[in-house]
């Protein structure tokens, strides 16, 4: 579980770290959307160059990003495989029954691979440089207009923040309870499916009990400190756009222009 890089935050003080979380969130979504517009080698090259500039600005070693791809590699290879074997058109290199490798298939496979890598790099960059709580703040701020449609935005953001806040706590608790049950002779991850399912019960029940305990304590603590819903509540971290956020937005426009020039 500790090998997962996506979702981790790496403290730092780089240009990217200092961007407003809203900028980073919007830019990441925007980048992921325009990845699908790339359809020539040159346009993919442009996108990769864009990501490399962002990574350089974050001053995080490229190794982190490559590691981020690793847990997804089987999903990627599976999808690429589908593309290669089932795309028709162009020169046929190899055929066996209804499986065939064609020119278009190979190109599509390579494109899909690039898309995956680009998307993973950008999402990894987002979470490595942004604290989860800032991300939740950004979501709240971006969803604010929906309040006029009576969407409980602050409550949703609170739920998101609490969930994010307690991920590490629950991971810790999971490790502790697993250790306690292993010490009592439970083997996790061995034996048949039924045995493994049975082994999870002594882990899940204490976790549930603990989560309810945490929820109750948290509710009491919030009550005791006078929490009465998010409306009109002031913020400790006030989000504000700075000049670098405009630079980041401008870069996205430049990237889009380059992409439009190089795509077919």
């Amino acid at each position, binding site marked *: 579980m*500790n090998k997962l890089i996506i979702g981790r935050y790496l403290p730092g003080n780089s240009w990217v770290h200092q961007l407003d979380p809203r900028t980073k969130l919007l830019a990441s979504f925007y980048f992921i959307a325009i990845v699908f517009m790339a359809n020539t080698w040159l346009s993919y090259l442009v996108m990769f160059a864009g990501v490399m500039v962002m990574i350089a600005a974050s001053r995080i070693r490229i190794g982190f990003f490559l590691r981020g791809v690793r847990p997804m590699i089987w999903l990627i290879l599976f999808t690429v495989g589908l593309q290669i074997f089932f795309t028709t058109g162009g020169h046929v290199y190899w055929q066996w029954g209804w499986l065939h490798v064609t020119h278009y298939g190979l190109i599509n496979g390579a494109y899909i691979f690039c898309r995956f890598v680009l998307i993973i790099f950008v999402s990894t960059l987002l979470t490595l440089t942004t604290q989860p709580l800032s991300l939740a703040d950004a979501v709240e701020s971006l969803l604010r207009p929906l309040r006029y449609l009576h969407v409980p935005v602050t409550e949703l953001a609170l739920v998101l923040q609490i969930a994010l806040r307690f991920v590490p706590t629950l991971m810790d608790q999971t490790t502790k309870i697993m250790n306690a049950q292993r010490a009592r*002779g439970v083997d996790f991850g061995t034996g048949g499916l039924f045995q493994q399912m049975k082994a999870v019960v002594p882990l899940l029940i204490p976790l549930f009990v603990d989560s309810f305990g945490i929820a109750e304590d948290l509710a009491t603590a919030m009550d005791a400190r006078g929490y009465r819903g998010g409306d009109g509540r002031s913020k400790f971290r006030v989000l504000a756009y700075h000049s670098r956020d405009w630079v980041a937005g401008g870069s996205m426009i430049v990237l889009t222009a380059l992409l439009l020039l190089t795509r077919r």
Partner: protein
Amino acid sequence: MDITFDHVSYTYQAGTPFAGEGLQDISVTIHDGSYTAIIGHTGSGKSTLLQHLNALLKPTSGTVTIGDRQITSETSNKNLKPLRQQVGMVFQFAENQLFEQTVARDIAFGPKNFGVPEAKANALAEQMVTLVGLPASVLSQSPFDLSGGQMRRVAIAGVLAMQPSVLVLDEPTAGLDPAGRRDMMQLFAKLHREQHLTVVLVTHQMDDVADYADHVLVMDHGRLVKTGTPREIFADPVWLTANQLGLPKTTQMAMALQRRGFKFAELPLTTSALAAALLPQLPVKAGERDE
């Protein structure tokens, strides 16, 4: 069963960018039948050390020898069950491990995992519940209906029911009331005395170290910085304070008395030793001389 650490180091999340040092070059032997206390401030590596005692963690380098089993970084996770049965482990806030529908079933859970037949495991549950000082009537209750202190006792009973030969205790009395603390510590001492159980105790209570342990390991920043008998460890109050540790209350009291003119050949560690050392020095009242 001796447990020997030979140049053991442990790195958390080895090979990732988040790697952190857990233990550094630990060499020590915990002898069969001893009562060893491990002290050190929070984050000094005590709990990491404990988890090596039953191979929950495997050393990144070095060897841990538990009885006749050698554990190195290459040891596979299979066939560790016999070892886990021999080294019972009571974790901090052990009540968190309870999950069964009844107390009896939760206590019998450990033994059954180690292949003890159902009937025998249930008999063990009854026996252990009495041993930890709970009425037999709780056996059929849900563990979640009990008080925190009672749940802790059930969890401890669950570990004792595995009939280990080494009992590892990670702050077993944290959060218990004074009576509960005393009961539990005396139970462990009794098991140590009568059944020659090897006990390893992690604690912040220097009084417990002075009262029960015959050997002390002091940890700091993942290193073993001092080992010795409680007397040797508590002989240097300045060093202890510098390492964010303290003295047993009795010893503090004795030092205060020393400043008032009382004399001690060696600083007493336990209340009975203090009383014995004080008695000849107390002025006797006139009326009591003849009694």
